[in-house]
């Protein structure tokens, strides 16, 4: 399988210089390393994407992909994993996609600890619909809808994920590429639900590259859940002079997965199907 080109020939239509490219390149690199190390089989990777700029990633990959509905990549991925537990299911979602439209699914998938990997391309705005604010846009963010600036406080997806019992919680930043790749690798290899909020400034509608570079710092994985939660609260996604933005793995633990709890032992499509008519009609004999 080593000869498979992970990248497709599809022409990239992200804006020139878009940081989505970093996520794509990092993912490609991590996959190919893991594959060379015999840790994964490319034939058994499925990428599920939502809708937004990030979603184009599925066209740029030559492996199995499911470009799902806006906000619904996570339940789609859950279904895939249930049907075939041998698959490694990776979701690429956006901040509008998963924190607005599909937030319910994110919380529940974390709670179920379904073994899927969720990478959020968080550019703190809806870029594909030209720059409206999302739940993680900072207070004061100016858009065509709110020229006077966003009025609401942003949500804190890291705290939310910790409170929702996600078994792997991390934050990464596209301008720390090696660090991002390390987190991606660990997230993919983690058994259970992995969540990574990737800060990915939007060079057209919300260029926070400089701000985040100046305020981000790498962390060591906290020793306790309480410490992790406290650290997650250090940055509230507002952009303030005093902001400190911790990046790195906040929390990881091994817990029984959704598929294990469900007692799924087989890969369903390989199951032998046979008609059980005689047995079935016995169920309804008066």
């Amino acid at each position, binding site marked *: 399988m080593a000869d498979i080109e992970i990248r*497709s020939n*599809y022409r990239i239509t992200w804006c020139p210089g878009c940081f989505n490219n970093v996520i794509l390149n990092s993912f490609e690199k991590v996959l190919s390393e893991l594959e060379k190390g015999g840790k994964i089989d490319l*034939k*058994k*990777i*499925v990428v*599920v994407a939502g*809708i937004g700029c990030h979603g*184009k990633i*599925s*066209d740029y990959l*030559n*492996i*199995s*992909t*499911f*470009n*799902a*509905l806006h906000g*619904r990549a996570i*339940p*789609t*991925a*859950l*279904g*895939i*994993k*249930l*049907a*075939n537990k*041998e*698959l490694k299911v990776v979701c690429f979602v956006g901040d509008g996609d998963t924190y607005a439209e599909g937030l*319910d*699914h994110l919380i*529940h998938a974390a709670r179920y600890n379904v073994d899927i990997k969720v990478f959020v391309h968080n550019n703190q705005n809806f870029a594909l619909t030209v720059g409206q604010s999302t739940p993680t846009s900072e207070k004061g963010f100016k858009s065509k809808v709110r020229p006077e600036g966003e009025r609401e406080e942003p949500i804190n997806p890291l705290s939310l994920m910790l409170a929702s019992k996600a078994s792997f919680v991390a934050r990464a930043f596209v301008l720390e590429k090696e660090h991002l790749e390390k987190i991606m690798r660990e997230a993919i290899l983690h058994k259970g639900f992995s969540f990574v909020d990737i800060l990915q400034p939007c060079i057209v509608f919300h260029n926070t590259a400089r701000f985040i570079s100046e305020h981000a710092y790498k962390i060591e994985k906290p020793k306790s859940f309480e410490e992790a939660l406290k650290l997650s609260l250090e940055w509230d996604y507002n952009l303030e002079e005093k902001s400190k933005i911790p990046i790195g793995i906040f929390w990881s633990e091994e817990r029984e997965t959704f598929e294990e709890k*469900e007692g*799924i032992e087989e*890969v*369903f*499509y*390989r*199951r032998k*199907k*046979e*008609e*059980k*008519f005689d047995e*079935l*009609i016995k*169920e*309804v*004999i*008066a």
Partner: protein
Amino acid sequence: MKMKINVLIGGKAGEGIDASSQILAKSLTKLGFYSFVYRDYGSFITGGHNFNVISFSEKPVYSHELSFDVVIALDENTIQIHKKEFKPRCLLISDVETSYRRYIKINAKEIIEKINAKPIVKNSIFLGAFFKAFDLPLNFLLETIKEKLKDEKNIEAAKLGYEYSRKVEKLQLPKEKKEKFFFDGTTAVGLGAIYSGLDIYFAYPMTPATPLLHYLSSKREKYGIKTIQLENEIAVANAALGASYAGATCMIGTSGGGFDLMCEAMSLQGMTEIPLVVYFAQRASPSTGMPTYTMQSDLKLALNCGHGEFPRVVIAPGDAKEAFYKTIEAFYLAYKYNVLSIILSDKHLAESFYTFDSFEEPEIKVENFILKNPKSFKTYSLTQDGVSIRSVPGEAFVKVNSYEHDEYGFTTEDKKVAKVMQEKRMKKFKALEKEVSEKFEMAKIYGNGENLIISFGSTKGAILDALPYLKNFRFLHIIYISPFPKKIVKEEIERSKRKIIIENNASGQLGSIIRENTGVEIEEILKYDGRPFTSEEIVFNVKRWLSGRY
């Protein structure tokens, strides 16, 4: 014996009338009768007034009536509410004070105290009393109680009820005591799905589809199926598409409101061409409506759900047995043609019990139509009939896409490709339609009069029971709504003198579909109060219509 005996069992929610109705009907079926059980209950767990009707006869019976030969009243309220529906010689079995004459009064309290049982055994006491009143062999009742109820006190209770009762009339037993099948529409869909190789049933609880979630959950171990309840219907529909994409045979189930939430995913089905079977049990009225009551008002919703244009199969079985076979067809078509199959049921079909003589092995054999380890693979390969054989991740690289896409599944906005792909998706339905019209029963004709009643879905039962009382009528039951049996319907209409459509909704949805497909406008008898038609009502209304007074 009389054509049909109607027994009412009424009481408060939680008093056990549901179990006792099934026990009575099943015991009668074991004795050789055909029985039908109708459930009428509100949205409460305890209290209120619920009632069931058990209609039974020596001849097949497919519906209930609301004029009673026997009333088993667990409370006084039942008598007050249904007094007007007592037939002149109606027999009452109860323990309440009443001046009603034809009454077997059983002191249930005394029996319960005597055997130190829970108050709910009152049901079994009254069933015992019923068996004595009609001089029926008690052991048939006791056997069914043993099968259905855990508390052994019920046996003692039924015996004492029998003892305390008196014989009113001897009910002639049917001569033939053949093995029969007794089940509801929910069980039928569940068994059809298991037959079809169901792997995972995804659902979010919603009346009246919930019983299927419960039924399949009770069969998990036995048949190796999974039932997954997720956070909402949106998750349910999308997860099922994910699972079906990865090779599991899946079904989802819901009622109106949940179906609305799933519509976007149905449209995703149309675009991605991932097989999906939907069990849609209709309730009454818009919005939350009347959750525990019935209507056939979501026919057009099923036909039109999801944005964009894509084909779908919509099948509306008319009784429990039909629901079994049609569920199997729904699976077969979804997985062979990569389409959406909707099994359109309703509260009346889902929760009513029917009796049948026989059960023939289905002709369809189970297959999941998956290409194993193909040398080269394109998810949406263009073929003669528009059907692309699917594969699954692990066997091939499978790209599916909610955006318009090319043969491989890559996003496209190219006008030529977009046109070809839209045509491909529509074309495969032609192939499907051809197979369905050759192999499956899309509509069925009953009787041979020169006048015609047309209907669909669960209204079938009441019409079949009304037919013997309507001179010169035949009945066309439409089972497939999409693809629509245009030819059969057109021909039947053309060769009939007077024609009437009967359906359980306010706007005449079947009528408008018939008009769309045949160009013929037909008069309608409609009902939309949340209750199913009874045969008496149909006879009455058809006669009025014939005389120009409807």
